């Protein structure tokens, strides 16, 4: 299973360019789409799930052309939109039954078994007879992922799935995705939460202003930030100056004042020690770096 994207462009009415010459290859496993708000993540995903037409460029999914083989592509896709609500009049199991039916599971017995398995998988079995409108935010998200998994799909596209979830729900969700990734499928996870990517994705792309600024393994991105992440000690009077001068990742109070983690090519006027970068540091460094025009 492979998704090939070639010079994809999307320009909205009014001239806003959401995607610009995007070229990307996605293989089996969890693929993370990272980028700030407005980077074009959702647009890309909506194009991939056939909800939107690109302005130009092409994409193939498992060899099927996005423009001409929507029927085949749709039969491969499971999609969880950003603001999933379900249908309030349907019970949890009914909604999954509907999703599974639409995904082509015709045999009622198999379908109902599948529904129960999905409900178990997402921890909603106890709530199977509850109306969707009665579920909590986390439960709704889980129901969303369950419906996206109904079929099951060959490609799972999830848009900002962990936004608004508490840490426990988020961990549960990440684990669920990890479990799914063991099957022969592509999972595209769009997020602006770096932790989601670092803990689950084997491959990723970084988008900014509709352009692809990085694609590869998260480790590669981290590697690129090595030697550019610092830890410095500062007193109260220095803190404001540091924040103005550098991209501060985090600030911790210490005995003498503050411990500040930041990204910078080199430190000027401050003494500090090099810090082992994480994906978050790499993401900030990369965006900083890129925004300075020093594209990789």
């Amino acid at each position: 299973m492979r998704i090939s994207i070639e010079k994809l462009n999307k320009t909205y009415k009014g001239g806003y360019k959401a995607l610009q010459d995007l070229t990307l290859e996605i293989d089996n496993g969890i693929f993370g789409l990272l980028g700030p708000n407005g980077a074009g993540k959702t647009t890309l995903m909506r194009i991939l799930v056939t909800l939107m037409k690109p302005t130009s460029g092409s994409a193939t999914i498992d060899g099927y052309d996005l423009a001409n083989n929507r029927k085949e592509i749709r039969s491969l896709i499971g999609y969880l939109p950003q603001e999933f609500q379900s249908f309030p009049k349907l019970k949890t199991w009914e909604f999954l039954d509907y999703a599974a039916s639409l995904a082509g599971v015709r045999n009622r017995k198999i379908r109902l078994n599948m529904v129960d398995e999905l409900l178990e998988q997402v921890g909603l079995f106890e709530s199977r007879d509850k109306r969707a409108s009665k579920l909590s935010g986390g439960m709704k998200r889980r129901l969303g992922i369950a419906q996206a998994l109904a079929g099951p799909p060959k490609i799972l596209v999830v848009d900002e799935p962990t936004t608004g979830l508490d840490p426990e729900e988020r961990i549960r969700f990440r684990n669920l995705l990890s479990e799914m990734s063991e099957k022969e499928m592509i999972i595209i996870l769009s997020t602006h939460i770096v932790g989601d990517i670092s803990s689950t994705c084997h491959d990723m792309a970084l988008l900014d202003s509709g352009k692809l600024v990085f694609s590869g393994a998260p480790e590669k991105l981290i590697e690129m930030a090595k030697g550019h992440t610092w830890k410095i000690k500062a007193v109260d009077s220095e803190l404001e100056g540091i924040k103005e001068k550098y991209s501060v990742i985090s600030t911790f109070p210490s005995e003498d004042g503050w411990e500040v983690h930041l990204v910078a090519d080199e430190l000027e006027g401050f003494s500090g020690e090099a810090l082992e970068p994480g994906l978050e540091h790499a993401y900030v460094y990369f965006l900083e770096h890129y925004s300075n025009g020093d594209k990789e």
Partner: protein
Amino acid sequence: MNMIYNIWIVAKFETKTLLRSWFFRIFSLLAIVILAFLGLGMYTNLAPVPWSFRGIPSSIPYTYILFLNLAQAVIAVFLSSDFLKRDKKLDTTEIVYTKSVSNLQYVAGKTAGILFTFLVLNVAVLIVAAVYNIFFAHSGLSPISYILYPLLISLPTILFILGFAFLLMVLVRNQAVTFILLLGYIAATLFYLSSKFYRLFDYLSFNVPLMYSGIIGFGNVRQLLVHRGIYLCLGISFILITSVMLKRLPQSKLSTRLSILFSGVFLIFALLLSFVHITTISKGEKTRKQIVNLNNSLEEIPAVRITECRLDVVHRGNKISSDAFLKIINRSSQPASEYIFNLNPGLKIENISRNSKEIDFKRNLHLIFITPGVPLGPSATDSLLIKYSGVIDENACYPDIDPEVIREDYRMAFMNIKKRYSFIKPDYLLLTPETHWYPGSDPGFSDNRPASRSVDFVLFDLDVKTRPDLVAISQGMPARKEEGQFTFDSETPMPGLSLVIGRYEKRSAVSDSISYNLYTIKGNDYFSEYFDSIKDTIPELIREEKENYENSLELSCPYSRISLVEVPIQFYSYNRFWTLGYETVQPEMVLLPEKGVNIRGGDFRGMAWRRKRRNKRRNETTADIENQVDMFKNFVSLTLTGDLSLSTLRRGPESQEISYSIFPFYYNFINHIESEEWPALNIALESYLSETLESPPSSFLRFVTGISDEEKANLELSESNLEEILKNPEKRDITRFVISLKGKFLFNLLANKIGEEKLKKYIKDITTRNRFRNISGSEFVAGLSKEFGIDIKPYIEDWYTSKDIPGFVLSDITTYKFIHNERTRFQVKFRITNRKPADGMVKITLKKRERQQQGRRFGPGRRRDSEAELTAVERNIFVKQNQTKETGIVLNYEPRTMTVNTMISSNLPSLYNKTFQEFELKKNVKPFDGERVVENPDTLPEAGTIIVDNEDAGFSVEGKKQRSLLKKMLPNLLGGDDDEKYSGLRFWEKSGNWKATINANYYGTIIRSAHFTSSGDGTLKASWQTEITENGHYDIYCHVSKVHSPWRRRKKKQKEGSYHYFIHHDDGVEEATVDLNAATEGWHFLGSYYFSKGDAKIELSNETEEKFVIADAVKWVKR
């Protein structure tokens, strides 16, 4: 398969969602509860709802689905626009949009879901209907109609409105705007468009004839399939377009192309069906027009007439084939080189032969032109055999009837019925002379002779072959040779022959050697249970009723058998210019509607219910026999021997009531006056002879219609003479009233000249002598002149050509009682002045009140059945132009009311009713019974008195003529016509401006009218202006007429309001209030004021506590 599966899945979950929607649940519950309550009122014993609401079993599902359809159309709009609104919450719907379901499958699934939801509702409502049908209505069950109505009414309606709503929603993309647009469309179609353009826009099928007869089914299956097919196709087309325009990327280009293609195909199919629908109806109009044009082209009435006709008819499937052996005679004084016969154009002639030798003929529409070879000499006879077969083209029936009248709905309660004039089906057949199912010599209606037809009295013999399980009914001595073979041998010549075949069962009673038969369709006996106690008495009752009827007519019936035959509800008949009879009444036969619905006396259950309630109210008990005898008499009097008049003041506005009066048995089917010179003479005599059958007009209907048809006819006669009206096709709507009125006038005039008894004796003698023969007009008139020594011809000439009509003023009505020969006698005296330059006549009817039972009459305010007004004296008074006559009538009993019918006159109203108060005892008075010419005309205003009536030039009103939007939209429903000069005082209507209305209580001489408007804030005024010629003090009066709606009588002690007059006098303007509680009818004193020479004015404002303000007349009286 995949497609169906996907549609099914989307539909299934849409249905689930909708069924759980509270909006839908509440709506459904409300619909079921309201319809269940409606059923309680309409189909149980709780209320006296007419039998016509439920008599035919399909009525109940029809009514229920019709009502539900109105509501579900609106709800479907909500639901459909809601679905698209839900779909706009993209994040939720997108999960469905990313599934492998095509746009068409998705939209179709949604549609199917909504349809299925409504199917559930339809089933629930039909279960309620079935409960009433089975357990309460006592009218039988028509299971098929429970399937047909949802399919024909609900399905196309919902599919169309869903498709339309989807389409609008994807175009407009705003639920509120879409909803407003759709509701507007629904309102426009329901209230305006649905009855226009051949009912093409009636997607709700509110005006589509959908009554399902238990005998022949719909009777218009093709029309229904075409009409409903239009909306079905449009709905599918719109749904397909919606799937193309849906804001979702299509699954494949092929599916999009196919959707566009099929959307176009269905749209074209809908347009084609619309075209078929319109052309089918317009074809009928075209055919009728062609027939009339062809008849117009015939220079004179065909000379060759039929004397004998033997018909061998075979009824097979949807066709008949027939051999007609005709004996013909040349009635003219010239040799006939061409025979012309009339045969329905749907019947194809195979050949025409004489003495087994085929002869040439030509066919043009309904007419057959035969060239006999050798011309037929005067009075010579010939015989022909015409073989023909085919169907009846009903477009050839009733060519005389205005297309608009033909197009009018035939309604029974909320149900619409297809008008049919004949039926040929495998298990049923009905053919009447109007269909021209056998050759006749009368070519039919022609604009040249609208008031007459040529009639042949023919000896018919009929042989019929049909299916063995069917029974044939016709005129003549019947015999059944074997199963499915019948013969009918004529006993008397008849003007027409009818044939009815069906699954009939027969009940008979013999009285005075006359056989009375009742033929009803098997299973349609709804009446026996109401007459179980008087089975043996029925022959005697029939004899009694017949005798009474014949005594009142002073005529007798020649038939040895009379049959009442049940026919499908769709069988319709119109009134004609040349006769008062309807096609429903044939020689020896009355064709009654299915299960007795839609006839006045057929609601036995209602009658029994009312009787029971009355007894309970009065704490009385009556024996079953007595009740049943009353019911039987009611049936006879209301249905068969009742009123034959056409007036809307007797039968209701826009009355579609078909007459079943057997009066034609006594005149139309026995005698006929044929006259080229005076074609209306026959209908004139018919109107005169049937005059005694007329019931008095309803005061209730006066309030509704404002002006009667007779009055409209009089207004017409004041502008054109009879000859001109007859020749003017534009006047057809009023022609029949003109002819009827003129007919009665002519013979009453003759009766006045030569004496009523003498005239009636003459008529009786000449009609008896000429039974079953045409009487020539000149023979009739010459005989009359000879018998009584008066030249009648000038009267008839004048009757035809005179344009002037009289105008009467009734004055000096005095009443008192006196003792004469130790007996109390009652004197009524009055003067009648004819103020116009044309002689005229008034008919005076004095009535006494007597305890007697009387049938129910239309509208509220009907008289109680304990007392009735019986005619005591009737007198015609002939008053020459500009002549005053004093009339005195002496009676042995106290009269209660006096009715003055001015017949043909410029009087409005043309009929006055005067109720007498207590008769004062007078001594030494000289009784006066008779009439005398007096020199002094009617009382004129005294010197120094100025009267300004609302008809005078000095009267004016403020405000322009306005028409409310509702009135514009619902002209038919609300009744009346604003374009008429005089309006009805309709209690339910608010009048925003002053309108003229007439009533005998208003001030006036020849025209008694007033203006009225609804109560208001006092800004709308009526004013009376005059010129004062002499300075001085004047007493001011206004004319008060207490004219209330008939409903007012029910509210006892209700306080009346006041009127506010403003008198403009020398010292300014003064308000004078008239307290209607204190005021009596007539002139009411407002005060004395000083007026100088010059203009003077009195105003009346529209401020009042009453519903209406009435501006009539005012007067200035010099002190």
